[in-house]
């Protein structure tokens, strides 16, 4: 009877403890950052299939007609570790995760063009969320960088 009670107790407690502690146990000190470079233009109406899921809402906000995925790069970075992503137009993006707490990661971004820093920013990026950084002209359109994190 006592043994049976313990089994039942374990059945209740174990799933609960898993849900309670899973986040804490799985919280990692590193995150995966991916940077997708998209060229938005108006010269045609081509939208890369792999972008359709992500830019659906952007299409309603911008007056571009085509979205092409130029490159995609992923970095596995520990907290405090910096990674560099090469971007079109002699641009580079330096990414440094600074801390991870809860559902957001504090990330420092530094955009450079040639040897000049264009901007520096500190963002709190949602886990599995994205920040769209856009604006620079490239070829016949504008570049949009989709910066995503997952941990």
């Amino acid at each position, binding site marked *: 009877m006592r043994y049976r009670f313990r089994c039942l107790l374990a059945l209740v407690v174990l799933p609960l403890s898993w*849900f309670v502690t899973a986040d804490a146990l799985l919280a990692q000190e590193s995150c995966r950052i991916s940077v997708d470079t998209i060229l938005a233009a108006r010269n045609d109406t081509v939208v890369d299939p792999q972008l359709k899921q992500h830019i659906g809402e952007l299409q309603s906000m911008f007056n571009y007609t085509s979205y092409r995925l130029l490159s995609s790069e992923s970095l596995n970075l520990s907290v405090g570790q910096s990674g560099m992503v090469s971007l079109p137009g002699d641009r580079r993006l330096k990414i440094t995760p600074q801390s991870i707490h809860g559902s957001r990661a504090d990330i420092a971004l530094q955009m450079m*063009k040639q040897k000049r820093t264009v901007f520096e920013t500190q963002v709190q990026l949602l886990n599995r*969320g994205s920040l*769209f950084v856009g604006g620079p002209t490239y070829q016949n359109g504008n570049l949009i960088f989709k910066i995503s994190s997952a941990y």
Partner: protein
Amino acid sequence: MTHPNADACDEIRLDRYLDGDLDAGEMAQMAAHIAECRQCRRQLAALTAFSQNLRDRVHDAANSVDFVALEKQVLNKALRQYRSRGGLSRFIASLKYTIPATVTAGLLLFFAYSNYVLKPPPVPSAIINSFTGSMSSVMIFETPETRQTILWYTEETDVESEPNAV
């Protein structure tokens, strides 16, 4: 003459005589003894009277009992015991496992539902804490539905080329 044969004055044999348990020879022998022995006659008369009295009382007691009602009462009691043993107790025994299993399943469903099914209202995908740089303009906005954060900037050299992208 009160004790013609002291060995024959056996109370146990007298009881058996009264009950008719002796064989024919013994019965005749005992009857002959009783005829001669006054003490045994008295004993026999007392035993006979006691037996008759006892039978009468049992008969009276039996007559006063309502056997139909008693039968119903016993039957109902037996049925109650049977039902409680086979029905309710079995149901309670099944609850012993069903309740904890139901509670566990409910908790699992609750946490699974709250963690994976129940979608919280969207929050901004990115919160920009600080922003510095050398550029002509910068806009920070978010999409209305999924609240995807967008940072749109114009580099100094791009001012004239694409001022009205949005």
